[in-house]
C-alpha cells in the first residue's frame, strides 16, 4: 500500500509540552477481569494518536471511559487542562470530545442536515434554526474538505459518505478531539484513502485525533504516535516513525507471529461449479445475479466485497441451505439437494460467518458440538442412540489436533460458549476439516465465510495455515472475506462481489488494490488500467 497523501506529522515533543487530553493511571475492572490497567496517555494538539490492540485488548473500554459511558475505578482524565467529570457523556461533548462509532448512529430516513442538527437544539424553541445550522454545516464542510450535500437523504449515501456525515456531526458540535473507532472496517480502499486525507486536513487545522484500529498498515500510515494495548495493559507508546509492522505485531500479540506458509501447487480437477446461478429474494433485485464460478482442488479462490452484497447468499448456497432459482450448482459434477446433510456427506467443509449464532450451539458441551454435523451418521450413532464413547474420543482427538484450549478444567463437557472466539473457531474448523472418522480423505470443498473475523493475530495465522494445508492436500477452498489483506495473503484467484454480481475470478497477481476497490463499488471493464493509487 503506497502512500497517496502525505500525512502531517508534528514532532512528538509538542504532545508532551501542551497536551489537549491527558489520561493518568486509568484503571477499570469488571469483576476479576482488568479491562484497563493503569493506562496513561497524552494527546497533543494536531496529532493523530493510534490506539492499537487486538479484540479484547481494552481499546473500546478506554474510549467508553473517556466518553463517559463507563466510570473508571481509578485514574483521572483532563481535557484542555480541566478535569473531566466521570460518567458524564454531556460533559465530554461540552469539553470538545467527539466520537465516530464503528456502527453509524444516523437516521436513514432523514437528510444530512437533519441528522447533524438532531439533538443540538433545545426542544422548547418554537422554530428550529435551520438556516443557521445549514450555514454552519456548509462552512465546516468547506473548512475540512468534507463536501456533502446537506439535503441528501442518508439512505442514498454510500458508506464512505455516511462516515463523512458522522465526522461532520462531531465537528459541527465543536469537537476538538475526535475519536474514530475502527473507521476503515467498512470502507473500500479508495474510501480509506479519502478518509486518511481528511484526517490530514483535520490535524492541519489543529484538531487532535484518536484512531482506534487493529490494522498495522493504516496505523503506520496515519498516526504520529502509537499506543499499543494488550490484555488491558499499555505495553508500549512510541512514535510511528520508530515503529515497523513486525515490531507492532509482536507488541500487540506478545510474541512473534510467523506468516502463513504456502506451497504453490497446480490446480486440479473442478470440485464445484456455479453456472449462471441466480437467487431471487423478496425485494426487486436478485440476491445473486447470474453468478459463474469454478472452484478447483488445490486452489484458494477468494470472494471480496463490501458486506451485504450477496456474499452471505453465495455462502448459504454453497453450504446447502438454499438452491439457486435458476442456473446450475454442481459438486464434483453432481447436483446436490438443498440440504446441509447432503452437502456434509458429499465432503463439503463449511465454516459459517457467525460462529456464535450459527457455528455452534453454545449451551451444549464441546463434544456434542464436535459431532453436530454428523450426529445421526453411522460413525456416531447406532439405532438412534448416540455412541457416546466414540463421539467423545473423536472430540478429544479434535481438541488435541486443533489445539482447542479452554477445556482443561471441565473437559469435553465444557459448555461451548465458555470458549474464546479463537478456540470456538478452531472447534468449528476441526469439525469441518476432520470430517467423518470412517472416511480418511480430506474435504472436497471448503467454504469459509469470514473465517478469521474478530480473531486475534495468533488465531488468524492458525486458521490461515489450516486452510492452506487443506488446500495443499487437495481441497478446493472458497474464501469469502471483507479483509483485503487476508484475500491477498491466501488467494490464488480473486473475484469481487457487488450487488449480487460476481466478477470473473482472475489470478491474484492480475488485480491491483485499486481495481478491487473499484469493483467493490460497481461493475468495471476488465481492461481498464486503473492505476489510481500509483
Amino acid at each position, binding site marked *: 500500500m503506497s502512500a497517496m497523501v502525505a500525512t502531517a506529522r508534528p514532532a512528538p515533543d509538542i504532545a508532551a509540552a501542551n497536551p489537549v487530553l491527558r489520561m493518568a493511571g486509568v484503571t477499570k475492572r469488571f469483576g476479576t477481569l482488568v479491562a484497563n490497567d493503569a493506562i496513561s496517555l497524552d494527546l497533543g494538539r494536531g496529532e493523530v494518536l493510534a490506539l492499537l490492540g487486538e479484540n479484547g*485488548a481494552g481499546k473500546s*473500554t478506554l474510549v467508553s471511559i473517556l466518553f463517559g459511558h463507563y466510570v473508571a*475505578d481509578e485514574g483521572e482524565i483532563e481535557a484542555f487542562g480541566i478535569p473531566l467529570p466521570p460518567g458524564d457523556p454531556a460533559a465530554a461533548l461540552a469539553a470538545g470530545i467527539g466520537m465516530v462509532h464503528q456502527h453509524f448512529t444516523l437516521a436513514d430516513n432523514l437528510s444530512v442536515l437533519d441528522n447533524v442538527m438532531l439533538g443540538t437544539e433545545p426542544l422548547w424553541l418554537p422554530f428550529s434554526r435551520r438556516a443557521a445550522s445549514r450555514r454552519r454545516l456548509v462552512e465546516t464542510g468547506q473548512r475540512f474538505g468534507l463536501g456533502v450535500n446537506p439535503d441528501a437523504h442518508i439512505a442514498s449515501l454510500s458508506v464512505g459518505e455516511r462516515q463523512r456525515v458522522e465526522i461532520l456531526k462531531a465537528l459541527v458540535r465543536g469537537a476538538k478531539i475526535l475519536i474514530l473507532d475502527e473507521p476503515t*472496517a467498512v470502507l473500500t480502499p479508495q474510501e480509506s484513502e479519502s478518509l486518511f486525507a481528511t484526517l490530514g486536513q483535520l490535524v492541519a487545522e489543529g484538531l487532535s485525533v484518536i484512531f482506534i484500529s487493529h490494522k498495522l498498515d493504516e496505523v503506520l500510515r496515519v498516526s504520529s504516535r502509537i499506543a499499543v494495548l494488550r490484555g488491558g495493559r499499555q505495553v508500549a507508546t512510541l512514535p510511528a516513525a520508530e515503529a515497523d509492522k513486525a515490531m507492532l505485531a509482536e507488541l500487540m500479540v506478545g510474541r512473534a507471529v510467523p506468516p502463513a506458509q504456502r506451497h504453490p501447487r497446480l490446480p486440479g480437477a473442478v470440485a464445484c461449479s456455479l453456472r449462471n446461478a441466480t437467487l431471487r429474494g423478496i425485494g426487486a433485485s436478485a440476491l445473486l445475479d447470474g453468478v459463474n464460478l469454478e472452484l478447483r482442488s488445490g486452489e484458494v479462490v477468494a470472494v471480496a466485497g463490501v458486506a451485504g452484497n450477496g456474499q452471505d447468499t453465495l455462502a448459504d448456497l454453497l453450504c446447502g441451505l438454499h438452491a439457486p432459482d435458476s442456473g446450475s450448482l454442481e459438486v464434483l459434477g453432481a447436483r446436490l439437494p438443498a440440504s446441509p446433510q447432503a452437502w456434509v456427506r458429499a465432503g463439503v467443509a463449511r465454516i459459517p460467518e457467525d460462529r456464535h449464532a450459527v457455528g455452534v450451539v453454545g449451551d451444549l458441551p464441546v463434544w456434542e458440538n464436535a459431532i*453436530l454435523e454428523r*450426529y445421526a451418521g453411522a460413525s456416531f450413532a447406532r439405532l438412534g*442412540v448416540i455412541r457416546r464413547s466414540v463421539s467423545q474420543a473423536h472430540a478429544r482427538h479434535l481438541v488435541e489436533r486443533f489445539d482447542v484450549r479452554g477445556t482443561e478444567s471441565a473437559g469435553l463437557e465444557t459448555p461451548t460458549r465458555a470458549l474464546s472466539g479463537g478456540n470456538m473457531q478452531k472447534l468449528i474448523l476441526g469439525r469441518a476439516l476432520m470430517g467423518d472418522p470412517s472416511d480418511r480423505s480430506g474435504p472436497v470443498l471448503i467454504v469459509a465465510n469470514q473465517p478469521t473475523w474478530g480473531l486475534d493475530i495468533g488465531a488468524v495465522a492458525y486458521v490461515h495455515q489450516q486452510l492452506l494445508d487443506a488446500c495443499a492436500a487437495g481441497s478446493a477452498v472458497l474464501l469469502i472475506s471483507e479483509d483485503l489483506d487476508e484475500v491477498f495473503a491466501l488467494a490464488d484467484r480473486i473475484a469481487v462481489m457487488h450487488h449480487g454480481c460476481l466478477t470473473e475470478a482472475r489470478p491474484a497477481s492480475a488485480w491491483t488494490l485499486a481495481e478491487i476497490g473499484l469493483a467493490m463499488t460497481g461493475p468495471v471493464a476488465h481492461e481498464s488500467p486503473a492505476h489510481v493509487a500509483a
Partner: protein
Amino acid sequence: MPSRLAQLAAPFAAVAFTLLVTSLLVAWARAPVGQAYALLLEGGFGSRFAWGETLTRATPLILTGLSAAVAFKARLFNIGAEGQLYLGALAAVAVGGLHGGSGLALSPWLVFPLMMLAAAAAGALLLLVPALMKSRLGVDEVVTTLLLNFIVLLFVSLMLDGPMKDPTAMGWPQSVALQDALQLGKLAERSRIHSGLLWALSLSVALWALLRFTTTGFEIRAVGANARAAAFAGMPVGWVTVKVALLSGALAGLAGAIEVAGRTGYVTLDMSPGYGYSGIVIAMLAALNPLGVVAAAVFVAGILVGADSMSRAVTVPTYIADVIVSVSLLAMLVAAMLSNYRVTATTSGVHGSRRPPPEGRAARGPGST
C-alpha cells in the same frame, strides 16, 4: 461454570426464602407461623395417609410437568397441557366407556392399551396443529395453545352434556364411566394412590434417557438451545418441532387418561384443578430435567395437600398453597440465575460488577440489495 455446590444448594435456598416470605402472609392472617408450617408439613408429608394423598396428587403433575419440560426444552412453549389433558381424558373414556361403560367388545388387555393410545393421540394431535402453524407460518404457539384450552373445555362441556353424558348421573355433567377392569389398581390399602404413579415414574426415566442418550434427544436439545446453528448443521428443525409437539401433547393426554383411570373413572369438568398450568411451574422448578420434574411435582403436590389440611386447623385460607408455589418458582428462577454468578461485594456500587462489553464486531455495511 457455576459450581456444583451452588447448583445443588439453590433449590433449598429458594424454598427457605419462599417460606420466609409467605410466613409474613401467614402472620398477617393472624395465625401462629410455626404451628401453621408444622401443620402444612405434616398434612403433606407427615403420615402414611399424607404421603398417599400427596403422591396421588403428584401423579398427573409429573406427567404434565414432563409434557412442559420436553416442549420447553425445544423452545416450543406449550401452554395448552390443560386442554390436552382434558381431551386425553375424553378420548380414554370414549374408547373405554363405550356402550354405557361396557367398552369395546374385546378383552380389557386389548382395550386398555387402545384407551391409552387414544388418549396420547388426542393430546398429540391437539398440539400438532399449533406446532405446524409455528414451524410453517411462524404463528406464536403461546397464543394458539393457550386459546385452545378454552375451546377444548367448551367442547368437553358439550360432550358431557350431550353424547357422552352418563345417563345414570342424575343430571350431573359427567361422562359415562370406564368399566372396572380398565381402571388402574391401587398401590396401597386405604389410600387413593394408584399404579398411574408407576407409569409417571417410568415415563420420566424414559424421557430423561431419550433426551440424554438418543439422536432425537440431541436434536431436541440443540434446536431448543440454538435453532439456527442446528439448522446449519443439518438438523431437520421443523420435523424436530413436530416430534416434540407429538411427545409433549401425548404426555399431557396420558395425564388425563391416567387421572380418569386411576381416580374417578369418569370425566368431569372439574377433574383438573389446573394440572396443565401447574405442569409449567413444575417443569421450570425442575430446570426442565425430567428426573427433577418428579421431585418438583411431589413438592408442589405436598404443598397443595398440606395447605388443605392446614386450613382446616388454623385460619389460613388454602390459597396460601398457590402463593407458596408461585413464590417458590420466582425464588427458584432467581436462585438458578444467581448460582451462575459469583456474587461479590464491591465498593464502587452500581458500576462494580457488570460484564465487560464485547469489543464490537467489525461494522457491517448496510445491505445494498
